[in-house]
C-alpha cells in the first residue's frame, strides 16, 4: 500500500464486469480492487482469458464496469457521461495497443500530435522534442505508418501516449507483435519514460522479461487478483506463472 504522501493515479474499488446474460454470462472481472500509485510502472499478468484486457479497458474508461467504482486521480470516471469520458481520456490517459495503433494516412509526427490536435491544443515543442528523442524517432517523423517497421510503429504509439503528459498510460501487450529485440527496445523506452518523466504506466504483458522491468507485477486469474510481486525478476515471474498454470 502506498503511503499517505503518495498520490494515486488510478484506482478501482470492488469492480465486476459481466459479459452476456443468464447461462452464457461471463464474469470477466470478479470483485477486484487495485490501486496504481502515481509515477509507478505496474505490470499485469495472467493466463489468457483471465480478464487482463478487460481490467485495462475498464481502468481506461474504454469500457464500463458492471458494478464498482473506477477513479482517475480524484475523479470517479465510472459515473460520468460518455462525452466527459472522452475528454478525460484525451487529457489524462495515453494508450498503446498491441497493433494498429496509428492512423494510416497521417505521418509519424501527425500521429504523435493527434490527441493534442483533437483537443485543439498547441503542442509544447520542447516536450515534443524530448519525447521524440526518448523514443528515438527523430529521423522518422515524416514517415507514414506503412513506411515504418512494427517496432517503430509501436514507438510512435508510445510517443503519442507520452506527448499529452497523461496521468496514466495504459498498454495492452504493446510488444505482443514484436520480435525479441524490438520488444526489448520498446520496453526500454517505456521504463525510461517512467524514470525520466515520472510517468505512470499500467502494462498488460505475457513476457516475463518485459514484466520484470516494472516495479510491481499483479497476477490475475479468473477476474481476481491472486498475487502481487514487488521488485520482480524474470525468474521469479516465471516460477509464479508456472504455479498459476498458464
Amino acid at each position, binding site marked *: 500500500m502506498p503511503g499517505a504522501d503518495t498520490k494515486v493515479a488510478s484506482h478501482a474499488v470492488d469492480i465486476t464486469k459481466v459479459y452476456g446474460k443468464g447461462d452464457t454470462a461471463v464474469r470477466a472481472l470478479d470483485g477486484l480492487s487495485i490501486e496504481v500509485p502515481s509515477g509507478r510502472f505496474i505490470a499485469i499478468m495472467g493466463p489468457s482469458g483471465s480478464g487482463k*484486457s478487460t481490467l485495462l479497458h475498464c481502468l481506461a474508461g474504454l469500457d464500463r464496469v458492471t458494478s464498482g467504482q473506477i477513479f482517475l486521480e480524484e475523479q470517479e470516471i465510472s459515473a460520468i457521461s460518455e*462525452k466527459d469520458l*472522452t*475528454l478525460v481520456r484525451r487529457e489524462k490517459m495515453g494508450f498503446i*495497443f498491441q497493433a494498429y495503433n496509428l492512423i494510416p494516412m497521417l505521418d509519424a509526427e501527425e500521429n504523435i500530435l493527434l*490527441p493534442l490536435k*483533437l483537443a485543439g491544443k498547441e503542442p509544447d515543442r520542447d516536450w515534443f522534442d524530448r519525447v521524440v528523442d526518448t523514443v528515438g524517432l527523430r529521423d522518422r517523423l515524416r514517415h507514414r505508418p506503412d513506411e515504418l517497421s512494427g517496432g517503430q510503429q509501436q514507438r510512435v504509439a508510445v510517443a503519442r501516449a507520452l506527448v499529452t503528459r497523461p496521468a496514466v498510460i495504459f498498454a495492452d501487450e504493446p510488444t505482443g507483435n514484436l520480435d525479441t529485440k524490438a520488444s526489448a527496445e520498446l520496453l526500454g523506452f517505456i521504463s525510461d519514460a517512467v524514470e525520466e518523466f515520472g510517468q505512470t504506466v499500467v502494462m498488460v504483458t505475457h513476457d516475463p522479461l518485459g514484466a520484470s522491468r516494472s516495479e510491481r507485477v499483479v497476477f490475475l486469474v479468473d477476474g481476481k487478483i491472486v498475487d502481487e510481486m514487488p521488485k520482480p525478476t524474470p525468474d521469479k515471474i516465471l516460477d509464479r506463472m508456472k504455479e498459476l498454470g498458464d
Partner: protein
Amino acid sequence: MWEVTRKGLLAHKFRLLLTSISIVLGVGFVAGTFVFTDTIGSVFDHLFTQTTSGTDAVVRAKLPFKVSSAGSNSQADRAPVPDSLVPVVRSTDGVADAQGSVSGYALVIGKDGKAIQGQAPTLGVSWGSIPRFAKSFNVEQGARPTRPDEVGLDQTTADKAKVRVGDTVHVDFLTVAPQDFKVSAVFKFGDAGNLAGATLAAFEPTTAQRVLNKVGVWDEVDAAAKSGVSQAGLRDNLRAQLQRTGLTDRYETITQKALAKETANTIKQGLSFFNTFLLIFALVALFVGAFIIYNTFSIIVAQRARELGLLKAVGASGRQVTWSVAVEALATGVFSSIVGLAFGIFVASGLQGLLKSFGVDLPSGGIVLKPRTVIVAIILGIVVTLVSALSPARRAARVPPVAAIQDHAVTPTSGCRRYVIGGIVTGVGVVLLFLGLFANVKSSDFPGGAGGLVGVAAFLVFVGVAMLSPVIAGPAALALGWPSAHIRGVTGELARENAARNTRRTASTAAALMIGLALITFVSTFGASAKKSFADAIDRTNRADFQLAGKHFGGFAPPAAQTARQALPGGTVVEFREGAWQYNGAGKQLVGSTADLGQVVDIKLRSGADLNGFATTGVLVYKDAAKSNKLKVGQTLPMRFSATGVKQIPIRGIYDDNKGLGVNFTSYILSLRDYEANYTTQLDLGTAVRKPSAMSASAARAALDKAMTAFPNVDVQDNAQAKDAQLSQFNTIINLMGALLLLAIIIALIGIVNTLALSIYERTREIGLLRAVGMTRRQMKRMVRSEAVIIAVFGTLLGVVIGLLFGRAIVASLHNDGIVFAVPVGQIVGFVILAALAGLFAGTFPARRAANLDILKAISTD
C-alpha cells in the same frame, strides 16, 4: 461456395437494402412511366369509344394531307360536309338513323365573370334529338337543350361556373357574338365528370351550327346501323352510296371502331412522346444507379479481400470467386427490380391522382400493367446491376491467396489501362457529340437521329470522365478539403485525407453525382441561352405597346381584336393565327396576319414588297425559305390547305428577321384574308397592339383594359408583362426537367451514403483508435460529414464543368437559329451550395454510425 455467398448476403441485409435503393428508384421510374402512359392510353381508348357510342359509321370530308403533328398548334382542319349529305346517308341501305354533328370553340363564362378554362380545349358541341347518338351525354339533372337559348354543361364545368339547371351562363364563341344561355341540363360524360379535362357546352344542333360558325354544314354525319348490319357492312353500304352519288372523291366513310382508334391514336402519339421523354430521365436515373452498384461492389470486394484470398487459398478458382460476387449482384438485381416494379405501379397511381387535382377527371379504370412493363423493368434492373458489378466481380478473381494472411494486401487494380480506356471513351464521346450536333444526322443514319447520337455521346462522355476522374480526385479532394481542414482543424484535415486516400472510390461516388449535375447545368445553361436569345429577339423586333394574350396560352376569339381596334382609333391592332399547310408534299407551318404587321413587329421586310396586295391576298416568305425553294416576289406559291386544297397564293415580299414571330420562327406569313378563306377555325393565338402616337400609354392601357372586360379569357399585357409571360414558359420547362433530374441526384446522394457507410465499416479499427485517443463523437460526426461534403462538391464541380461544355456545344450548333450563349451564374452557384448542403445531409447517417461505433469492438485485435 454457394453457402458462403448466401451467408454473406444474409449477413449484410442492410448493405443489400441500401444498394438496392438506387436500382429500385431507377426501375420504379421506368415501370411507373410505362404504367402511367399505358393507363392513360387505355383511358382514352375507353373515352373515345364512349364519345362515339351509338354511332356505327361516320361520313366526313376527306383530308387532303396529313397535318404533321410535330410542333403544330393547329387543329386538324377537315372541311365540313353540307346539310344535304344527311338525307343521302339516311337513305342508304342498312342505315337505321343518321344525324349531322359539329363541335368547335365555346368558352363558358362563370357567374363571377371568370372564364372556365384549364389546359384542355373548351368545346361547344351539338346534342341531337336522336337518343342513340346521345348516349355519352349521361344526364344528371334537367333535359336536353331544345331551344336556341339553352345549353347543357358537363358536371365539372357546371360546378366550376357555380351554375345549376335553370341558371344562366354566358358563352363566348369565335365568330359570333357572346350570348347568354339557360342551363337546361348538367351531364356526365359517360361515367366521368368531364371529357379528359375539356369543358363541354352542348347545344341543340341548329344552334350549335350557328354559334360554331357552321351554318348549313356539319363536321360529319353519324350513321347507326339497322339491327343485323355490322359496322363494316354499314361502311361498305355507305361507300357504295357515295360512289353512286358521285361523292367519293370528297367524302369518306369510317366505322365507329376505326374512328375511336384513330382519335385515340392521335392522343397516344402525344403520349408516346411523353413516354419517351420520361423514359430518358428514368434511364438517366438507372445509369446513376449503375455507378452506385459498381461502387458498392468494388468496396465489397476490397473489404472481402481477406475472405476471398482465403477461399482461393483453400482451393477456390478465380471463376468461382467471380461467381460468388456475381450471385450477390444477381440477388441484388432481382430484389431491386421486383421492389422497383411495385414502386413504379405505386407512383403511377399517384400520378393519376395528381392529374385529377389538375382538373383532368379520367374515367374509372384500373391501372394498366402490361407484360411488357414487367419484362422491361425486371430485365433492365437485373442487367444494369449485373453489368455494373461485372468489373468488381472480375477483380475479385484476381485477389491473391496471400491476401488471406497479409494485413495490407493490395487489391489488384487495372492500373493505367483504365485511364487509357477512359481517355478513348471520352474522346469517342466528344467526337460523337460534335457529329450529332453539327453533322446533320438523320434518323436513317442513327437510331433516334441526332438526338439519339447526342444521347449516346453524353453517355460515353460520362463513363469516360468517370474512368478518368480518379486522376484528379486526389488533388481535387485535397484542394476542396482545404477550407474544411482550416476551419475544422484536425477533423477537417482527416476528412480531407480520407477523401483523398481512395481516389477511385471518391471519384466514382462523385461521378454518380456528376451526371445529374451535368444534366441540370446543361438544361439550365441551354435554357438561359434560349431565354436570353428570345428576350433579345423580342427587344430587337418588338414595336408594339401591348399584347393581347389568351389565358393559359390558349387562343381566343377574333372579336377581341376587333373590339380593341374600336377602342383605340388611330392605333394598330394585328392578329396572329397559326396553321399547317403543305408544299411539295412537305408539311409546313405558317402564321396568318395583316398587312400592317410591320407596325408591331420588325420583320425587316426587303424593299420591293407589295403590302397593299398582301392586304387582300398573298404570302410573305423568310429569306432562307425563299432561297432554298427559289422563291421570288411576284411568283405564286402553290399552297395546299387541308380544308380547301391547293391555292395559288402570290408571293408579296421577302423578310429577313423571323425571330420576333414567336418560338416557331415561322418562314411563311399568310394574309389574314387567305387564312380566313382556307382554315375552318379562326383562333387568334396572339394580338399585338400599337397605340395611336397622340395617346398616352396609360390612357391606351385604360381604354384596352376597359374594352377587354368583355373577354374574360384575354389578358392585356404591356411589353414587360408580355416578355415575362413568354419567358416563363421556358422556366416551366427548365423546372420540369430539373424536377425529373432530381431523382438522379437523390440516387447519387444515396450513393454517397452507401459509400461512406461501407468505408466506415472498413475503417472500424481506425475509428475506434481515434475515439480511444480522444476524438469526441461530435468531432467524429464532423469528420464524416466533411468527407461527404468534399465528395459532393467534387462531383458537383465536375458536373457543372461538363454541363457547361455540353451547353456551350449545343448552343454553338444552334448558332444559325440565333441562339447566343448565356451562363446562369446565380443558378450554378446555387447548385454548388445546394450540393454541399446535400452532401452534409447525406453524411449525417454514416456520421452517426461512425460516432456510435463501440470503441472496444473496434480496437480489439482479434
